[in-house]
């Protein structure tokens, strides 16, 4: 993590960044032929993977919202395979988690 004026910058290693890019490009390719709703799974899984890399490279994030949110995503994303309504509800709720985090940070900075 680095600090620039009022902004905190989190870092990824080159390997993590390349892995993330490879994952995103591969997910885009296989979305051409997989069931359409798999695309939602790839996106929420990408969020989990990105948090995994951030947590690996930025130990201070252990106290943030990320470990809990990543754990929640990893538990509930696989509902896509056996409980579609619960999975869809999870997706509808997921953005609120990060939205609340962003809002809280903005309010704290004001």
């Amino acid at each position, binding site marked *: 993590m680095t600090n620039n004026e009022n902004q905190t910058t989190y870092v990824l290693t080159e390997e993590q960044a390349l892995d993330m890019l490879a994952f995103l*490009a591969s997910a885009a*390719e*296989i979305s051409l032929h997989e069931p359409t709703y798999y695309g939602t799974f790839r996106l929420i*899984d990408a969020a989990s993977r990105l948090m995994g890399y951030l947590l690996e490279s930025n130990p201070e994030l252990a106290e943030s919202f990320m470990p809990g949110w990543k754990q929640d995503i990893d538990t509930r994303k*696989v509902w896509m395979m*056996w409980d579609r*309504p*619960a999975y869809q509800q999870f997706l509808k709720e997921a953005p609120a988690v990060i939205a609340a985090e962003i809002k809280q940070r903005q309010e704290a900075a004001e």
Partner: protein
Amino acid sequence: MSEFSPEADAFFQTLKTRRVCRSYTDQPVADAQLRRITEAGRWASSGGNRHIHKFLIVRDAETIRRVRSVAPGMLVEPPAMIVILTDKEAAERECIQLDVDQINQGDVGTAAMNMQNMAHALGLGSCPVTSFSHSGVGVMLGLPDHLEAEWIIMIGHPKPTQRGLGTGAPKPLTARDLTWWDRVGHHDPV
């Protein structure tokens, strides 16, 4: 008391208790176990006795990590994996037109199922993966042009996890749900 032999009941129990496993311990998979699993794959049915597949065992953690980066269906990095490959040169020798052939994927599936059941019988967990970039996996594994990755079977010692079912989970399927007798829509009367 079953009406079938103990061997048949034991075999059925192996089939019935196998589940896809997506969480593994760090314990390596023994080479002898991997050999036995690929032997089980070899004895799968092969349409027309064609045997146009190869099994690539991968144990190197760095290689597995690289493959996972282009395989979104690999939700974890397993201690080992077996990649089922189609040998396109062998297919050509057998006069198989892979672009329209309907047997190839069936043969890949039966080999994969044999291997997954064998892994389970050995106390291991496994998970088939088909969601991956074929071009990306080809590069990561250094595959020559005539070998095409079809399925990846992740293998390892299972780590217990909570499945965390939601409240709307459907009831488990039974064979009766899937089976009709003599005519469409006619379920087993028993």
